[in-house]
């Protein structure tokens, strides 16, 4: 499938009817979703026949693009049952098999817990570790809840078997590169893209606004070989 073709199909993915600002619900545009998944598939072979997770899946556009490019198993995580309901309808319309989990990926146990990992986070999805080959996300950027983007990213890197694809504000690039080094993962800035935010919320003064986002790919060292 060609990139333009994929983007064309994704135009029909329904978006939030009533976006919730505290969850920073901005739809990933068909353009961004197509770029991300097309690259993950054609350049890195991280999609076809893979198990793919989608963190903060919202209306499911990244996963739908993933399925179109041949992923074998997809599961979406979101805290908002209204968003998941829209995602389910999208899957039905596109005749896509995908599972969803209603969950709070930002929940971090208190640092005093004896079960915490060395970095203070405990994997509440311990059983999922290493089972999802690729994890996709367009996380909340942390404008409402500071640092939530990094919580999503860390969790994705913890759980993924091989690669994580994510979008972040370009202004946070240096911070993320430093964190990636700390976490012992490779981080590549695949592209710098324009994220066009339509006037989703009343506090947006302009009709639409372009913000610079980095399309990042993280790769874990020595992926588990199950061959």
């Amino acid at each position, binding site marked *: 499938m060609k990139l333009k073709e994929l983007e064309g199909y994704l135009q029909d993915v329904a978006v939030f009817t009533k976006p919730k600002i505290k969850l920073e619900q901005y739809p990933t545009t068909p353009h961004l979703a197509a770029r991300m998944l097309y690259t993950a598939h054609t350049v890195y072979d991280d999609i076809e*026949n*893979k*198990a793919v997770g989608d963190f903060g899946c919202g209306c499911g556009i990244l996963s739908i693009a993933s399925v179109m490019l041949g992923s*074998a*198993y997809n*599961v979406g995580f979101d*805290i908002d*049952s209204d968003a*998941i*309901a829209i995602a*389910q309808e999208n899957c039905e319309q596109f005749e896509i*098999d995908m*599972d*969803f*989990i*209603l*969950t*709070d990926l930002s*929940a971090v*146990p*208190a640092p005093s*817990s004896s*079960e915490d990992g060395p970095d203070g986070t405990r994997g*509440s*999805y*311990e*059983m*999922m570790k*290493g*089972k999802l*080959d690729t994890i996709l996300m367009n996380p909340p950027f942390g404008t409402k809840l500071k640092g939530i983007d990094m919580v999503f990213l860390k969790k994705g890197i913890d759980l993924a*078997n091989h690669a994580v694809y994510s979008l972040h504000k370009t202004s946070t690039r240096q911070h993320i590169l430093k964190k990636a080094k700390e976490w012992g993962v490779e981080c590549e800035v695949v592209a710098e893209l324009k994220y066009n935010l339509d006037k989703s919320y009343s506090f947006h003064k302009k009709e639409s606004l372009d913000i610079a986002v980095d399309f990042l790919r993280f790769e874990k060292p020595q992926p588990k070989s*199950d061959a």
Partner: protein
Amino acid sequence: MRLITHNMLQCHVKGCNANNFPLDFQDVSLEQQEAELNEDFLRNMLGKIEYGALVATCLKLNITDLPSTMPADANTNEEFLQALHRVMLETHVISGKMVCPNCSHIYIIRDGIPNMLLAEHEV
């Protein structure tokens, strides 16, 4: 939710760290939905699934398609891969409950979606 997803879910309640997997199904309604068989994917998953938990879960749901231990030739055993596909990727849990075998926390499944959200004090 398909059974492959259930095979990766554990209890999330704070302090519940042992014997919290697999979650026990109760009062579930199941649905079979045909899906395309992807043998490459299944082979890739063989080393990742919790096979014992999967078989135990199936037995409770009266699904008896899987042998109690994974055959040594699972990689090439088409009949087994077919059965695994049917169980993990075609069996959907539409509604019901999942109960933690350790702390008895109940997670509700509605419209095929497991609700893993916890109240503030349980996180």
